[in-house]
């Protein structure tokens, strides 16, 4: 749907500006502009939807928010026993448990965000068919609550760093960048999946497989140095390869991410921008296919 809004010039900061706005509704086909201003106007809704997901997440559970720690922690123990002890996977000279845990944190942020945002339109279809708001608010608000889980699980990582006597380096300053990259990658994938999922519910069933396979294509259990030189560029196309390697480097300061980081960043940008446009293009049919 093409919607243009002409605000009156005078009252830019006043809530009353919306009162004086004209909305034009006409059929539209093909690609449409992102209209992020409309999304900005609805930022409070974005906030409330995110807040709702955070509030509801651990309702009626015994362990509550502790789940945010239990999941990566026990996965780390299982990985450490099988891959660290039995298979003896190399870990770039870092103790395997903290090697695995520092990879699992961004990975779980990513995989849970992809799962949640990929299913977000389907699970919010009662909203889509009953009220207007920029639909982008739905997958975005599904990605953000993962940051809270991440924050909780991150505390455990700090404890582990103390335990293993690993002091952070200057590289720690780059951590927000890699966090942002992980969120952007998850959103990029989530936008594609959510729009597809609304039309083809098959997508909902493939998401668990997708994240499972993706885990093996990402240096979570093993270092990327295991990948032969000639495949590194291809490997970098997986945006999470750059994110996870970057994460480890920022926190533990051992091996800096390979040259494929640039490729990963490019892949994220492509995914995200492509996802945004694809989502906006499909958006006008959402209410009809939901």
């Amino acid at each position, binding site marked *: 749907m093409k919607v243009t809004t002409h605000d009156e010039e005078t009252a830019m900061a006043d809530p009353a500006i919306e009162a004086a706005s004209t*909305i034009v509704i006409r059929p*539209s086909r093909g690609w449409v502009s992102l209209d992020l201003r409309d999304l900005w106007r609805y930022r409070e809704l974005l906030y409330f939807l995110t807040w709702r997901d955070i509030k*509801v997440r651990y309702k009626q559970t015994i362990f509550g928010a502790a789940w945010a720690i239990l999941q990566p922690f026990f996965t780390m123990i299982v990985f450490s026993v099988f891959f660290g002890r039995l298979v003896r996977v190399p870990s770039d000279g870092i103790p395997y448990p903290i090697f695995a845990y520092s990879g699992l944190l961004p990975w779980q942020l990513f995989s849970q965000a992809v799962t949640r945002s990929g299913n977000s339109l389907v699970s919010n279809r009662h909203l889509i068919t009953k009220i207007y708001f920029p639909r982008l608010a739905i997958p975005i608000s599904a990605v953000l609550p993962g940051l809270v889980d991440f924050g909780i699980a991150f505390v455990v990582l700090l404890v582990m760093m103390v335990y293993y006597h690993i002091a952070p380096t200057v590289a720690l300053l780059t951590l927000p960048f890699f966090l942002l990259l992980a969120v952007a990658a998850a959103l990029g994938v989530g936008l594609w999946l959510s729009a597809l999922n609304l039309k*083809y*519910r098959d997508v909902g069933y493939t998401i668990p497989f997708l994240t499972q396979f993706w885990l093996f294509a990402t240096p979570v259990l093993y270092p990327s140095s295991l990948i032969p030189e000639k495949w590194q560029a291809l490997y970098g196309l997986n945006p999470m390869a750059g994110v996870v390697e970057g994460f480890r480097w920022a926190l533990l300061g051992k091996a800096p991410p390979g040259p494929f980081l640039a490729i990963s960043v490019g892949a994220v940008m492509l995914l995200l921008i492509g996802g945004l446009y694809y989502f906006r293009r499909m958006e006008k049919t959402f209410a009809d296919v939901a």
Partner: protein
Amino acid sequence: MRDIAVRVENLGKRYTIGGPQAQYQTMRETATQMALAPLRRLRQLGRPGPVEEAFWALKDVSFEVKQGDVVGIIGRNGAGKTTLLKILSRITNPTEGYAETRGRVGSLLEVGTGFHPELTGRENIYLNGAILGMKRGEIDRKFDEIVAFSEIEKFLDTPVKRYSSGMYVRLAFAVAAHLEPEILLVDEVLAVGDAAFQKKCLGKMGDVAIEGRTVLFVSHNMTAVQALCNRSVWLEGGRVHCDGNSTDLIRRYLSGAKPVGVHQPSGEYDLTERRNDYLADKLIAQSLRILDKEGMPKNTFLMGEEMHLVVDVQGMSDYREALIGVIFKSIDGQWITSINSGMTCSHVDEPRQKEEQAILRIPTIPLTPGFYWIDVSVAQQGIGRLDYIEHAASFTVAEADVYGSGYRTTRYFGLVYLMGDWEIRNKVRR
């Protein structure tokens, strides 16, 4: 001259039935269709193209609403009322045409959109308010008022999943009622809650109108439309059928002239406001009255009660052989039975006058409890229908102890009941 708040020009919305757009599809289906498409096209060479099952939920709809007007949108189910609101509130995209709204738009297609069962009443007020487009500060300011309106103060911090359905609806409507857009689009949301609460909501809606906001109000509740809207737009089959003064429009909408259910509690039906699409070039049947045996018009009868139907007719002198008949139909339009003057009539006054009255006496109504339609027909044997009014009137039948045994005879036993008597005997002779 007030400004235009809503302008709609040739708006249309098409849904494809059974086609790729309307239906839920799996990827396999799409893939198969894509793979087979060339083959199908090859096979169809030289044949007329497949007829796409398109359905226009809305077509060529145009109207304007001035600022501060409260306009009712009426019409039967499937007439396109909700589709119109969905387009104006930007939920769905039109297929053709143009629409423009000037001012902050708030739409209420349902109350309690986005309520989350796990969250408390307090939390849901904020969430729902944000979804409806309210700012946080606005919700803060109106919070106490919303709570007071909803009458759920005590349960404010209880998750709404523990609410009774009445409490849930009251809270949901309370939030919605405090939305203050310049243009309000409302769809049948008053059909919730108990009578007292509905009355309160209607009052609140009336306030909205007084405050000078523009309202488009979809409803089947004609009393509410008449009370709130000075003007109405009547949609039928996705098109604007009529547009004008509400009182006028509703009378016509409710009158037996159109095949629309009119339930006149008085039992008196005026049949003059319509067009005769049959053989006579004028309206023959003028009115139909449903009377009890005392000659009092009424609309609800007991099973087995005596009923008189009086049809006023004009111009029968031109059709001396014509028969006057009534057809009884069930609520879903099923033909139950009919009776015409040719079957029974023994009293015809001669010479016949321009204006006549046909009276049918039914000593006992053989119908089970429920709602019934009456069609009126004037026809001449060998020629056809001269005048016909589908669903000219309606009445209801209430339960009565027709067998004198205290047994409750309901609709589940059929549309008609038989008078009769069972006797159960021992087969073995003593």
